[in-house]
């Protein structure tokens, strides 16, 4: 269903001003590109490149030509075909978070390091929840508790892809890691040609704002782009700390970061599918930390979606974020505000559900709660249909003054499309709530749902040969690290 984004933060003139400011930054200030091959691509396209500093200054026409090459829609293929995702700047999909350094243990309520078993559980729960489409994964985690550091991406990818039929994300962090993830995705796809034809993996590349592309992730960008695999190029400015405190300045700088990365992806392989990505937020200047649950993050997301739509490129943003350490009321209102501003603003890939504590921590219960919020966001995006059937004038006439609609076929017929049916929200009387649920809180309800999914949901298994081959690659990656250590 095409998306209508009712929340408009910027006027057309303001979008144009931000775009021109970004082009001006890329032309005059330029960006630092730490990867040599990337600088070569830029130089060949007509950029001025200073090899000693890595500074690349991009003429506006080079950027604008590249932006035109980026598709406005593309498909990311899941290994279970009906889970494939048709990305478009007119649709919204949700990407729950999976891999974080910490997890709020769902039994002890204590924060601890995330293990491989946690990754498997998180993916399994996300696999069971219908509004989750593109899955972040263990492959992205720089470290996983109990796993050798150099093989975390391979273990993380396997633990993820074997627990879901949905699309799984890969890591871009350096050439070797990117190659491993792509190699494993090719095994799942049925070979490299099949992977090129039907991409089943995507990644995130983060420019280091302001105006830098680091070496490792740029290597990753080149690897993914050369296979034509989808990449979200996402800048993460914190207003007042790593960008101007003014949100207009943040958007201009972010746009320069992102469109220079998108330009590189198009120079590597014209037509590479990309998202314009934001993880923009503010720094809380009293504590000196990022505030991902801030209302300004909602504004940044909605504005970013408009800028991306101006380019005709899908937008990846954040929503359902919170800085709270507990699943409490702060978590509830911050998640709702950020998710709804992003969704109603037109974000196409909504990332970060499942997180808490400024996304330092993940939680199974949060995945379930946020999924409910996503359901409400989809309902809000469907808006209100107005036609003869829904206006229902003959029905109102038939019921007449003082009547009710409970016994009408019209009510039963339209009920499901008109009303979102929550699974967690309790709308019973206080007495029923106490007697039937034991006065269960949101956390309790979510916890019960997590337990139910873990006990009953079986993800579609991998083909045994694929499973064996992926396990072989994981062992190979582990051994490679052992050799590197022996040689060092």
């Amino acid at each position, binding site marked *: 269903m095409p998306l209508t984004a009712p929340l408009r933060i910027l006027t057309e003139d303001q979008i144009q001003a931000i775009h021109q400011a970004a082009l001006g930054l890329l032309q005059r200030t330029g960006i630092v590109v730490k990867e040599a091959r990337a600088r070569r691509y830029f130089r060949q396209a007509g950029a001025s490149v200073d090899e000693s500093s890595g500074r690349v200054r991009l003429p506006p026409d080079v950027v604008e030509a590249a932006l035109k090459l980026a598709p406005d829609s593309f498909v990311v293929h899941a290994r279970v075909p009906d889970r494939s995702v048709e990305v478009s700047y007119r649709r919204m999909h949700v990407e729950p978070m999976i891999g974080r*350094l910490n997890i709020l243990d769902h039994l002890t309520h204590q924060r601890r390091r995330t293990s491989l078993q946690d990754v498997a559980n998180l993916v399994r729960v996300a696999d069971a929840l219908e509004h989750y489409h593109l899955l972040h994964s263990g492959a992205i985690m*720089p*470290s996983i508790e109990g796993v050798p*550091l150099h093989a975390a991406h391979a273990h993380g990818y396997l633990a993820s892809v074997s627990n879901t039929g949905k699309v799984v994300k890969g890591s871009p962090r350096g050439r070797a890691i990117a190659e491993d993830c792509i190699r494993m995705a090719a095994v799942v796809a049925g070979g490299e040609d099949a992977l090129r034809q039907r991409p089943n993996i995507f990644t995130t590349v983060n420019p*280091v704002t302001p105006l*830098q592309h*680091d070496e490792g992730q740029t290597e990753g960008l080149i690897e993914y782009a050369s296979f034509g695999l989808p990449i979200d190029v996402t800048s993460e400015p*914190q207003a*007042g*700390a*790593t960008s101007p405190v003014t949100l207009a300045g943040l958007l201009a700088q972010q746009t320069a970061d992102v469109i220079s990365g998108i330009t590189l992806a198009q120079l590597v392989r014209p037509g590479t599918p990309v998202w314009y990505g934001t993880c923009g937020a503010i*720094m809380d*200047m*009293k*504590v*000196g930390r990022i505030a991902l649950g801030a209302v300004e993050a909602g504004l940044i997301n909605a504005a970013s979606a408009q800028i991306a739509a101006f380019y005709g490129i899908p937008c990846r943003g954040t929503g359902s974020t919170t800085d709270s350490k507990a699943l409490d009321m702060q978590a509830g209102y911050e998640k709702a505000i950020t998710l709804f501003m992003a969704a109603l603003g037109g974000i196409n890939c909504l990332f970060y559900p499942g997180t808490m504590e400024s996304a*330092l921590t993940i939680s199974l219960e949060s995945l379930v709660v946020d999924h409910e919020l996503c359901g409400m966001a989809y309902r809000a995006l469907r808006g209100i249909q107005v036609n003869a059937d829904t206006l229902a004038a003959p029905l109102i006439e038939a019921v007449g003054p003082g009547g009710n609609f409970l016994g009408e076929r019209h009510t039963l017929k339209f009920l499901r499309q008109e009303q979102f049916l929550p699974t967690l929200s309790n709308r019973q009387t206080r007495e029923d709530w106490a007697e039937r649920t034991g006065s269960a809180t949101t956390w309790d309800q979510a916890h019960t749902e997590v337990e139910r999914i873990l006990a009953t949901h079986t993800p579609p298994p991998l083909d045994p040969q694929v499973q064996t081959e992926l396990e072989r690659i994981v062992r190979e990656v582990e051994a490679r690290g052992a050799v590197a250590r022996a040689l060092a």
Partner: protein
Amino acid sequence: MAEHEAIIERMRDSILEADDDEAVAAAEAALAAGMDPLAALEAGFSEPIRELGEAFNRLEIFLPQLVLSARTMQAGLKVLERALTTAAREAARKGVVVIGTVEGDIHDIGKTIVVAMLRSAGYEVHDLGTDVPLPQFINVAEQTHADIIGMSALLSTTMLRQRDLLELLQLKGIRDKYFVIVGGAPATQAWADSIGANAFARDAHEAVLCLNARARNVTSRA
């Protein structure tokens, strides 16, 4: 004395207003008026910056004010330092810190806060920036006669560099010259213990408390 008090007041205001030019002018006025540079430094610069640091820790002021005021103090300090005797300079400083984000890591927001807080607490801080190669930590520490090395790392991969630096100090036989304090998102007390660092600090405030405790220790032993 009224003149001296007025100059101290100007110095204090320059810090609170984060006015670099005024800090330099007030410091020069203090020297021209024949004031004791060490006393002027303490009352005019150190005290207000310490107050700001404490106010920030109580969530009463905004971080940019602390960062800007700490920079103003650096500007004024340069003027007074010219007049300080070596002994007075030693007495004025609680410690010399060489700090940076390790090689491979290009994030420095957290470290920027630590630097501002340490300066506001009276430490001489040499900020090496981000993506700092290990030998540079040691070279600058040796050149500046530092006694403290601080290392930040934001990724579990780059965090390993903290361990490498400690090994390098051992190899060079200068491990005992430095108090090594580590921090950053993936770092923990257990990590600091496992690599043999002297201390771990979760945040800027804890870093100041930790180094202050060390300073008291050093003084009481001396």
